[in-house]
């Protein structure tokens, strides 16, 4: 019996593809967001609100990931924004190679912001780097305050957490401060925005922050050339 040393990261192939994607995004100077949440937390609603807030100033596009249907891509197109649907069939997350394939038929050159809306799932997408510059996780308050502790990898690895549906906090019997404390314990460095996509509360702070993030990306790209 021979023992052969391997010492290889299981996700190596994905990471190589993610590095290629990231190079392309950086060369183009665009900010790329990997948007993740449980199903129904409000990813597409947040996207709609974000597009309305940014479309006059920036060139945007969206890649949608779902198991089935192109309903989300249709919602984005209804706003006049380009979108591309990836249907994963039974796969519970997007991976970097799926994004690379999508980019072959969905040109993103010249964009300021590309949002990749991942499959609704708080577990699997956390493990797959897509080449994004920013990870954003949405947690709706109606899911309960303990979700960051139950899905710590997802919440630990993100840059931004949006606490959506704050208008439902009282009706759901959820203490928003308890939810925010749980986010901070799992990820003390995260930027947190309480928002309600339905009432519009808190969205201005998020959109202003995002504009700064887009601007700093453009400045960084200009400095490289």
């Amino acid at each position, binding site marked *: *019996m*021979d*023992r*052969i*040393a*391997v*010492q*290889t*990261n*299981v*996700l*190596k*192939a*994905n990471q190589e593809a993610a590095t290629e994607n990231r190079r392309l995004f950086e060369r183009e100077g665009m900010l790329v967001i990997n948007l993740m949440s449980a199903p129904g937390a409000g990813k597409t609603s947040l996207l709609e609100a974000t597009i309305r807030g940014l479309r006059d100033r920036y060139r945007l596009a969206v890649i949608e990931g779902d198991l089935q249907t192109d309903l989300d891509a249709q919602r984005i197109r209804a706003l006049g924004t380009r979108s591309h649907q990836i249907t994963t069939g039974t*796969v*519970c*997350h997007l*991976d970097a190679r799926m994004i690379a394939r999508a980019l072959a038929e969905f040109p993103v050159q010249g964009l300021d912001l590309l949002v990749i809306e991942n499959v609704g799932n708080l*577990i*699997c997408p*956390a*493990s797959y780097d897509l080449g994004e510059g920013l990870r954003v996780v949405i947690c709706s308050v109606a899911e309960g305050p303990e979700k960051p*502790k139950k899905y*710590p*990898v*997802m919440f*630990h690895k993100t840059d931004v957490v949006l606490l959506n549906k704050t208008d439902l906090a009282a009706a759901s019997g959820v203490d928003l401060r308890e939810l925010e404390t749980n986010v*901070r*314990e*799992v*990820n*003390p*460095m995260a930027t947190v925005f309480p928002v309600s996509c339905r009432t519009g509360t808190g969205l201005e702070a998020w959109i202003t922050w995002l504009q700064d993030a887009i601007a700093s990306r453009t400045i960084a790209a200009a400095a490289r050339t």
Partner: protein
Amino acid sequence: MHELSIAQSIVEIAEANARERKVQCIQTVKIRLGEFTTVVPEALDFAFEIARRGTLAENARLEIESVPMVVHCVACGTVTDPVRDVCLICPQCGLPLEVISGEELQVEYIEAESVARSV
């Protein structure tokens, strides 16, 4: 259930190494799996049984070494084991803790019968 994708990657890596060394019939695939990942050992074991079919790892056993989650404070050096209730704020000084182990997902080695001597 992304354990199947993970298991397929493990089999691909194991097969690539077996081919490179011109061995057939992989007997063991040893991996290190951190506690602070999204991969469940039991689910991975089951997925591996499916993923190995028709490959050089057809009869291989998946050996999983679990790596505990350990965090430390960059400021005061406090080392803790936060697994029960993940809190990544230092209990001593209130600063963010850094994860120093528990995120591993790595194929360590394979064991195989060496048969093909004709290069």
